[in-house]
């Protein structure tokens, strides 16, 4: 187990380097960001040259990348164009997005799995068909439509919630945005769980458990569910990374100042330091989440062993 984890951690290094290099190059290809700093006119050449020098943009790309990576390993992610440290931006953005992701994941797990189990056990009944139909609708409607619709209905028409989230973004204000963010994945989790449960109800070990005379609740939770959760856990695990990076739309609609907001702004302003910094952290989150998922397999299924 320990050796497996170490091997996986080592594998992360090339992935990490490759991902950051790619992002770095992509932002660089967009051209000189200093030109966008002076409004509808050319920056005066002297100031532009100084700014380029201060941001290290006057060096060749490979040197910029090496300097940047060197700084990253000492914990210095550089400075955004408005003079703020990127680490400072991360310090304010990540807690918000993490809270949003937690809300979304909780929705996925609680509602998604419960609906999946219920429909999986009642295949073909009205509940099953109904939920299937609803998930179909949720999957086919884009997030920004669901988001804007809920915002308008709950926020403006019925005034149950604030249409936007205040900048401190406490958990209670993130419930609706979290639900919107989770909606599509939630539908997938439901469907995945349902299929998995439906398949396993016919498995030998379930029949054995029932034949042993175990109570139905125990059969479902200990035998059926535990074995059916493997694909679902994989999905949710990878979804953590996707939710954190992919919250741009939801964050924009509800004015949440999280990772998506900073990334969006960084891209518009072609701020290499911000974009690469945030993406680097997201890549790490993704890698770690994947590792955790793989480790969870062993917990769920005793037949899986890592050496």
């Amino acid at each position, binding site marked *: 187990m320990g050796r497996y984890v170490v091997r996986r951690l080592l594998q992360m290094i090339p992935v990490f380097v490759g991902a950051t290099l790619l992002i770095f190059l992509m932002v660089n290809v967009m*051209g*000189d960001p200093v030109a966008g700093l*002076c409004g*509808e006119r050319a920056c005066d050449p002297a100031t532009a040259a100084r700014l380029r020098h201060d941001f290290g943009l006057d060096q060749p790309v490979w040197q910029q990348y090496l300097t940047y990576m060197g700084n990253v390993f000492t914990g210095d992610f550089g400075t955004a164009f408005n003079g*703020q440290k990127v680490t400072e931006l991360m310090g304010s953005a990540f807690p918000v997005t993490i809270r949003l992701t937690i809300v979304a994941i909780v929705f996925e797990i609680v509602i998604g799995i419960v609906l999946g189990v219920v429909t999986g056990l009642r295949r073909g009944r009205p509940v099953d068909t109904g939920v299937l139909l609803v998930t179909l609708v949720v999957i086919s409607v884009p997030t920004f439509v669901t988001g804007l619709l809920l915002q308008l209905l709950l926020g403006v028409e019925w005034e149950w919630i604030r*249409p*936007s989230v205040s900048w401190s973004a406490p958990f209670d204000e993130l419930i609706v945005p979290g639900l919107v963010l989770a909606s599509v994945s939630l539908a997938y989790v439901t469907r995945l769980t349902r299929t998995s449960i439906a398949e396993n109800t016919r498995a030998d070990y379930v029949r054995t458990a029932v034949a042993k005379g175990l109570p139905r609740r125990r059969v479902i939770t200990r035998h059926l569910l535990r074995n059916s959760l493997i694909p679902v856990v994989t999905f949710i695990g990878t979804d953590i990374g996707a939710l954190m990076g992919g919250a741009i739309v939801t964050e*924009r609609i509800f004015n949440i100042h999280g990772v998506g907001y900073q990334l969006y702004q960084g891209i518009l*302003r072609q701020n290499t330091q911000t974009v690469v910094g945030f993406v680097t952290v997201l890549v790490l989150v993704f890698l770690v989440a994947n590792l955790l998922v793989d480790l969870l397999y062993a917990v769920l299924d005793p037949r899986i062993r890592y050496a």
Partner: protein
Amino acid sequence: MRGRTHAPWAVCAAATVLVTAGCGSGGGGESGAVLSSSWGDPQNPLEPANTNEVQGGKVLSMVFRQLKQYDPKTGKAEDMLAERIETSDSRNFRVTVKKGWTFSNGEEVTARSFVDAWNYGASLRNNQKNAYFFEYIEGYDKAHPDEGRQSADTLSGLKVVDDHTFTVRLKQKFSSFPDTLGYAAFAPLPRAFFDDHDAWLAKPVGNGPYVVQSYTRGAQLTLRKWDQYPGPDKARNDGVDLRVYTDSNTAYTDLLARNLDLVDDVPATQLKNVDTDLEGRYINTPAGIIQTLAFPYYDKGWGKAGVDKVRTGLSRAIDREQITETIFRGTRTPATDWTSPVLGADGGFQDGLCGDACVYDPAAARKLVEEGGGLPGGQVRITYNADTGSHREWVDAVCNSINNALKNDKACVGNPVGTFADFRNRISGQKLSGPFRAGWQMDYPLIQNFLQPLYYTDASSNDGKWSNAEFDRFVDEANAETDTAAAIKKFQQAEGVVRDEMAAIPLWYQNGSAGYSERLSNVALNPFSVPVYDQIEVS
């Protein structure tokens, strides 16, 4: 929910030394007459000489007062901190600063506050993006050379005479110089700015009607009324909370849900609902912004003689009335000259100067384009940045209009560029081969500001590299005039050259628009499309 926090007291305690006067009034802000307003994250640090866009400008307009102040209605420059500004030759100016003004930290505003601030703004080592505002002052080329190291830290043209007097010597005659002094870059700065720069940036201290109570970068800035403010334009509310919105649509939704009091950028998609949504709590007033199509005169096709007929032809092929009505819903007005109505006739605005050349007439357009030798390269590609300002919609509409008028489906196509920075890169790299979007928001309400930076040879915003000796001569003469009216006449003559050559196609004048909640009254936008916060009343 309206931005109540406990933080102000903690902040005050920590900063008692700095802002004793300011915090006393902060208490008043808790009484409820505080309004919330939408905001965007300023692109640059909030220094007066480093802020060149509206969002940062909003804050400066509340926190600072300059020698001159532009009247929110007429746009005329009126004395604020200036007792008087005297000159006999339009080149040497003697500025007397009013006594009794202080910064909100108690420090007196003296001649030195201005001279230090202007020297800081001009000095190359400080990376101030508005440094060129000081370029007329003698010694600018030493403190801010185009290349190489600076040989001076201060401008030799600025001299402190006594506590409340200083002199300015310009490198050339510039009669309207005093009227430019209302621009934010010319604000005075307290010693705290120089002594502890980081602390100042975290919580700017100025001499305006509001004090900054707390500033969370990228999220919120809370301003409170400064009770001891010595100026005539004291705030009529207890404070303003500026909240950063990523999307103007969300801000608008928040306004509808009574969660926000003021939105000063109503999204184009909501304009058609604005009357029913806000029941008259919507203003739409002219601002000093003009949109034009500029041309790359460095390009062989567009630079050759005789193409002015093609440009005029294109201008006549654009149905401005219809586009401003259907796409902008009246928040733009068809342009008939190259300045802005906010200048007023006295300030040099000439309604209808463009004449027939700006009137839609497909037949005339076809004829002119043909006489001019046809479209260079057979096609017009209008370059614009697609990331902000719903530019795609109007560029497509302009192209449609041109295609219909010229009866050629391929006469005009849009050429979107992903980001503003990339768009500016292509312009400054002279990589364009067709017309491009050019918007100009005035820095100060003077006809000079609409002409010189845009059309003078090698001027800072002359992106198309248009050059005309006659125009340059008129501008030089105008700047040398000591009499304002005579100077404006000369500028108008210069504008006549722009018209005859159709140096750029004027499209429309842009309005500022804002929507507000039932709690507010007396809401107005100044000619810079910034809300006049100090006059807003909260019930």
